[in-house]
């Protein structure tokens, strides 16, 4: 969560695309909410302005100049992987850069190159 903000030299969590929270209290353990790069992403389907562009291989890219900050993408993601930038009033979209993986000391996060595994999927055109 902190590493994600730091990739741009930011500190704090306002710009983080990952979220860590407990599952009903710390007594029961933690979860990490991070974009899994859907090949057919629902967030893109509900974007009224086309600000979320499907990426080859899965996931989306944000074109901030088109985004009107409606928040539909946040509601559409059932795993809660679209975070919200409260300072800019726009979604924070994971780019799958893998910076966070280098700072996960316990091997919870992993970056997989789908091309190498021959699993590349191209999202169907809208």
């Amino acid at each position, binding site marked *: 969560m902190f590493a994600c903000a730091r990739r*741009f030299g930011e500190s704090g969590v306002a710009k983080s695309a990952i979220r860590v929270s407990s599952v009903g209290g*710390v007594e029961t353990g933690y979860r990490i909410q991070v974009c899994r790069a859907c090949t057919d992403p629902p967030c893109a389907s509900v974007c009224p302005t086309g600000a979320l562009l499907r990426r080859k291989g899965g996931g989306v890219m944000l074109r901030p100049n088109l985004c009107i900050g409606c928040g539909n993408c946040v509601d559409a993601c059932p795993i809660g992987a679209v975070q919200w930038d409260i300072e800019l009033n726009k979604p924070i979209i994971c780019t799958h850069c893998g910076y966070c993986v280098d700072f996960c000391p316990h091997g919870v996060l992993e970056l997989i190159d789908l091309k190498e595994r021959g699993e590349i999927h191209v999202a169907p055109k809208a």
Partner: protein
Amino acid sequence: MWLPRHDPIKNVLYIDLTLKKFWVEDRSDLFEEYMGGTGVAIKLLEEEIPRNADPLGPDNVIVFAIGPFNGVYPAASKTVAMFKSPHTGNLGESHAGGRSSIALRLAGYGAIVIKGTSSLPIWVSIRGKNVVFNDARALWGMRSSYTVGRIIRENEPNPGFRTIMRIGRAGEKLITYAGVITETYRHFGRLGLGAVFGSKKLKALVVSGRGSIPISNKREYRKIYKELYDTMVKSPVMKKYHDIGTPVNVLRLNEIGALPTKNLKATKFENADILSGENLAKGYLARRMACSHCPVACIHLAALREPYVDEPFFYKTTFVSYDYEPIFALGSMLGAKSVDGFLRLLDMIETYGLDAMSSGVVLAWITEAFERGLIGEKELLGEKPKWGDHEIYMRIIDKLVEQPNDFYKAIGKGCAYASRIYGGEDFALTFGGNEMPGYHTGPAAPYSFMVGARHSHLDSAGYSLDEKTIGKELTEEEIVDKLLEEERWRQVLTSLVVCLFARGVYKPEIIVDAFKAFGLTVKVDDLYELGKKIHMEKYKFKIREGFDLDKYKFPKRIFETPTPHGYLSEEKLVKMKRIFKEKIINEIKPIS
């Protein structure tokens, strides 16, 4: 000098519980001069508390403070709490991790000052710029602090970005060693912050925040962060906290004959194997956790599996957080016989929100006072304490929190207080009014508990100096100087505020480098100067509130039980105390 530009850390949030009012002040002055954490907290305390205020009255003030490194660098995960301690009647300082420091930092504050007393039980939520006063009458008197945590969690927004500090019934009942629990497994444990919360009718304090912190040199920031991170996860300096955790000390201290056992009648414990960190890891360790923004994960949770009394094949499984100090206090100090007994007692202490360390030392004193006939079944209301019998200890804890008679009221104020009434001061193991931590390592440990500003083993780690010098004898002057140097340095670490477990990583030079990310140029000497100044400020406050080192005697017991340095000499310890007095206390002019 220490305040990064445009950093919201300069904002101090003041909350008045009497008036249900809050406001923010720009205290750049304090953060510029005293950095944050301990340094800023002691100045706020000095400003806000009227002289000789009753620790359990409306004039007492609670300060929570964090420093510039919180939320920015790894393992800078602690929050400093300062208050006037109802346990010692003087300076109270206690630190905790969890999510507390991150939530405070990202809510945009450097410190919170809580004043006054609410007329009805409340819980206060700080949500960024907004402060909400919630009715806590339905939570007051609830038996389990775990339940209180769950209910507040379900009623509050911002999961994942918040800290929930709460008290149990012990705090409500003003037991002077009640603590404040945060994120279920971390504690502002020592010196009675829980009772101060209770006296203010403050059941809980929730802080949530998710903002940014300005970084002026982004490239430098990423570089230094990586360096710190790599040292923490790849080098051995922090490995011991991660693997078996602090309980690795049980066997180590037992082997050298430094593990306080049965009210320090001995320093070798026959059941050390059973209660060792190794054994706990093998049979009970269920999960490890980290405080927010720490890669180490030193929090060890044991799974306690208890069968239902009246139904076969039904079990209740509870996670109990264990560390070395609770194992000492509720294990060796009480002659524990089984891990289950120890964990059940610890779980109960968590349920009520007591400080595990003081509770264990108080129970040990009760057991010995009972053995010697100073107290009997009349005082104890039928209980007959016996080393290793946790069932009885659990019943005594129940009564301690109920406070049914004068005896239980007395032990609710600690064993220094109770032994003044019932006798047994020679074996009441307290220093400066606070119960001892788990080290009978040599002369430096008890001396450091006595003169450390918060009477804690973490003030200057006298135990560590003892361990390093086994077989050698340092002069009184040498011990005093080394520990003074250490305590001063630790004021810097707890003003940043980094976890003291990361002290091996946060060396002076790397701290200087880390300040560059804020665009601040500081020198190593500046850090040392600051540490010295903050330590002096703490002692000034202590003296202002009537601290008199001569009033406190070393309990006789510590001279009767051998340490790895042999039997301790009372003469030597008294001389060390005198040297400290000349060096520090006589330097402080009475504040008019």
